[in-house]
């Protein structure tokens, strides 16, 4: 496999302002806020802070770009696709710089930002570039002498609010389908991690997207996210973040009946059956929980182990995960971007949390029910399949689930029964851009990725022509 090129030393942050109408501008109020490196707590730089006045400017720009005879609205669908292909090429060209920014801003190891986050970003944009001219309506056999057909039109001006755990990737999941389907966008990044998307804004301009099609605001939830989600001229809001804020957003959207999609939290169960290969099962459970330092909406944070193998499973997990997390910390120290990722275990400098495992967890405990979003694993014992399926489904969440067994017939039966948007059998954390992702119940509304994401950014118009 190809080697990972080294990160940029002494990275200078070039883009720190708001991006509106293809221009980088200061906030109307002139405010800025600090962006911190979570590895050492140091200030990377200051970034413009958007408030309601900036939200209004950005939405106006997006409305203007969405007007009936605008360049964006009258462009051939295949040309929209070409712009997205160009953006993917530019992301690829600047992959090292973007991965460095992401690592410094979010704290994830650089090689993971390069090999995982950025790889998925590029694939996502390329995938949606190919959809641009393939979103078909239908001609319909209605009663009577009519020529009847549907048009798949863009929804309009889309507010998009993204989280800090996979900053650029979450932006791409939103921008890809929205732009492919011809919408205009006002995107608010997370206040913890604004940098990679601002750099990408410069690439969006370079790719040739008309002004106003994409607008990027950095800011805080209550002062920027809320006015954006409430704005009467936004036709849609798409949010990824906590369930708590997700319910707020749905409320704001109700004021003008915005279309809403939400990707929220989870407390995903992983069911380990007694016939599973124990070493493989432990590896999968590691990945399921500890990936991205536990900061993953779909983290497998309830591990149900079938009674006969429970005793063996516990200690193995303890030892392996301890070693693995320490290894991660060591490689993070070695990589050293200019803005140091820090160096010591367990938080003398920066926000490293000791990896933690609880066993003998009971379903009623807080750690069994609430999303922790950190490297804390809960292990439970179960006796029968029916029992574990019911316990797994007994949650207000329903984002993901895992099943580990060599018996594929049982695996399919269990997958059929689990109330979760993604079920992983003998794997975890696969995020192919072709496959839809989203939650049952309070883990969200709607699906992102795949062809399914197009529906979120399409408004269907039926036309009847009397002949």
């Amino acid at each position, binding site marked *: 496999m190809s080697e990972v090129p080294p990160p940029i030393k002494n990275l200078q942050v070039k883009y720190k302002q708001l991006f509106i109408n293809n221009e980088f501008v200061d906030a109307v109020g002139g405010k800025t806020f600090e962006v911190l490196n979570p590895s050492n707590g140091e200030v990377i730089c200051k970034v413009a802070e958007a408030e309601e006045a900036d939200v209004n400017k950005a939405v106006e720009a997006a409305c203007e770009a969405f007007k009936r005879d605008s360049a964006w609205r009258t462009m051939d669908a295949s040309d929209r*696709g070409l712009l997205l292909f160009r953006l993917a090429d530019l992301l690829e060209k600047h992959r090292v710089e973007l991965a460095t920014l992401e690592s410094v801003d979010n704290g994830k190891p650089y090689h993971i930002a390069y090999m995982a986050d950025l790889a998925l970003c590029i694939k996502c944009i390329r995938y949606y570039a190919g959809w641009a001219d393939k979103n078909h309506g239908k001609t319909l056999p209605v009663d009577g002498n009519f020529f009847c057909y549907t048009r798949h039109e863009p929804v309009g001006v889309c507010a998009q609010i993204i989280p800090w755990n996979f900053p650029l990737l979450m932006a791409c999941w939103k921008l890809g389908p929205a732009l492919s389907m011809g919408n205009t966008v006002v995107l608010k990044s997370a206040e913890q991690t604004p940098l990679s998307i601002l750099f990408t804004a410069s690439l969006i301009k370079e790719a040739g997207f008309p002004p106003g099609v994409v607008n990027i605001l950095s800011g805080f939830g209550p002062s920027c996210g809320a006015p954006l989600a409430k704005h009467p001229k936004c036709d849609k809001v798409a949010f990824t973040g906590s369930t708590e804020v997700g319910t707020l957003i749905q409320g704001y959207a109700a004021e003008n009946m915005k279309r809403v999609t939400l990707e929220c939290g989870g407390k995903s169960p992983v069911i380990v059956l007694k016939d599973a290969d124990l070493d493989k099962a432990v590896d999968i459970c590691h990945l399921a929980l500890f990936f991205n330092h536990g900061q993953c909406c779909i983290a497998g944070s309830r591990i149900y182990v079938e009674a006969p193998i429970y005793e063996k499973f516990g200690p193995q997990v303890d030892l392996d995960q301890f070693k693995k997390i320490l290894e991660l910390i060591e490689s993070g120290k070695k990589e050293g971007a200019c803005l140091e990722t820090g160096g010591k275990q367990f938080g003398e400098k920066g926000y490293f949390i000791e990896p933690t495992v609880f066993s003998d967890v009971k379903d009623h405990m807080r750690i069994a029910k609430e999303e922790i979003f950190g490297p804390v694993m809960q292990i439970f014992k179960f006796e029968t399949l029916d029992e574990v399926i019911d316990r797994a489904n007994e949650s207000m969440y329903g984002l993901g689930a895992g099943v580990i067994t060599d018996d594929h017939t049982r695996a*399919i039966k269990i997958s059929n029964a689990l109330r979760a948007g993604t079920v992983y059998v003998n794997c975890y954390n696969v995020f192919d851009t072709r496959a839809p992702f989203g939650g049952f119940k309070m883990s969200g509304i709607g699906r992102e990725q795949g062809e399914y994401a197009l529906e979120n950014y399409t408004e269907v118009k039926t036309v009847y*022509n009397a002949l």
Partner: protein
Amino acid sequence: MENVKAFKNPLIWRTQLFINNEYVNSVSGKTFEIENPSTEDIICRVQEGDKADVDKAVSAARRAMERNSPWRTMDSADRGKIIHKMADIIERDAAYIASLETMDNGKPFASALGDVGFSVAILRYYAGLCDKIEGKTLAMPNGKFGYTRYEPVGVVAAITPWNFPFLMSTLKVSQILAAGNAFVLKPPEQTPLTSLLYGDVAIEAGVPPGIVNIICGFGPTAGAALTAHKDVNKVAFTGSREVGHIIQKASGESNLKRVTLELGGKSALIIGKSADLEKVVPLAQDGCYVNMGQTCCALTRTFVHEDVYDEFVRLSAEYANESRAKIGDPFQDGIKYGPQVDKVQFDKILDLIESGKKEGAKLECGGGRLNEKGYFLEPTVFSNVTDNMRIAQEEIFGPVQQIMKFSSLEEAIDRANDSDYGLVAAVFTNDLSEALYLSQELEAGQIWVNDFMLMAPNTPFGGYKQSGIGRELGFDGLLSYLEIKTVLVKL
């Protein structure tokens, strides 16, 4: 593609067969001549493939499609990237490819460039489609799990025509590769030069060996060997109706290979009494003479309402005479029409023109040769054409327009449908309701309203009746390069 200049004497780069990512001579060592139809000069000689070469190529394709081969196991998005790269390469070399096409086929350089541009768009469309070929999971009774897979059909024989050589080959190549297949292409013996470049394109884009193979040769030898081959899963042919019959027969007699055919047409154009003649006359004639008439979907039966018939005929003859000045050296700026592709076509068209005169049609203008050298024909217009005449029924494939009179719309529809062909039917009208009604009633694979040659990478194209079997382009077009497998599991 703006400001692209032609190479007036393009280098003859490739004249050999292409098998397993290598350019090679034919087993027999035989070669055949390629002629420049504008000058009647011999351009070069090209290797002539026959059964032995076809066998080599099909074996290479079969190996490349083995179960665990690089092509079979590649991520679909990576296949898409390769096809996208092919588009980039062709766009980069557009001037050369179009120049070679003009020298080989005789079409004006601007048309050849347009063909290359459309080729690039088709490749890009299909590049983006590779990872969007989705099966379904099916509603099954409790205890059962069912789903469909769309798999590549396998080794495809692609046989392409001489009228839009590079474009027709691209159409096949892009769909075949997008669906994950391998192919053996037999390009037209009259004009193989641009299709031969696909070998270089494939190598530069990173296509694994054996997926792209090109065997130049003749229908009765190389073409027949391909269609009879027991190890070819499908044949896709674009060409004449006569050969279409032969191919379908050979496919049935060999191994029941899947067949798609894009054949000829005698496409009707209906012009109502409210038509704006100033606009409609040039459009109607351009739609008939497109590519020197060498177009399967040329509008070659022009039905004109009796109220505007006389004026339409007069204006058409005038427009045809104006075109004479724009016929000539296809490398010259401002030239609209080049020569016919070769002497065989040239003679056939003149013969049909004679039949028109003999059977009582009125020759309004043209009817003979233009220029002393090169297969140039005068733009020709016949009026008073009746449905039983040879020029009303047979595909002429030259710049010959047939104008017929009708009194009622219902009559026009019935006469338009009274044909063994059914490729295109066109309507020029300002009344959308009339257009929509006609679209329902006309028996043709394409209905064009108020324009001609309306086509895009995502619009399925193909014929009713003897104009063909199956569709190409768009999502639907891809289905004929796929095989559906249904998987049913009892849990």
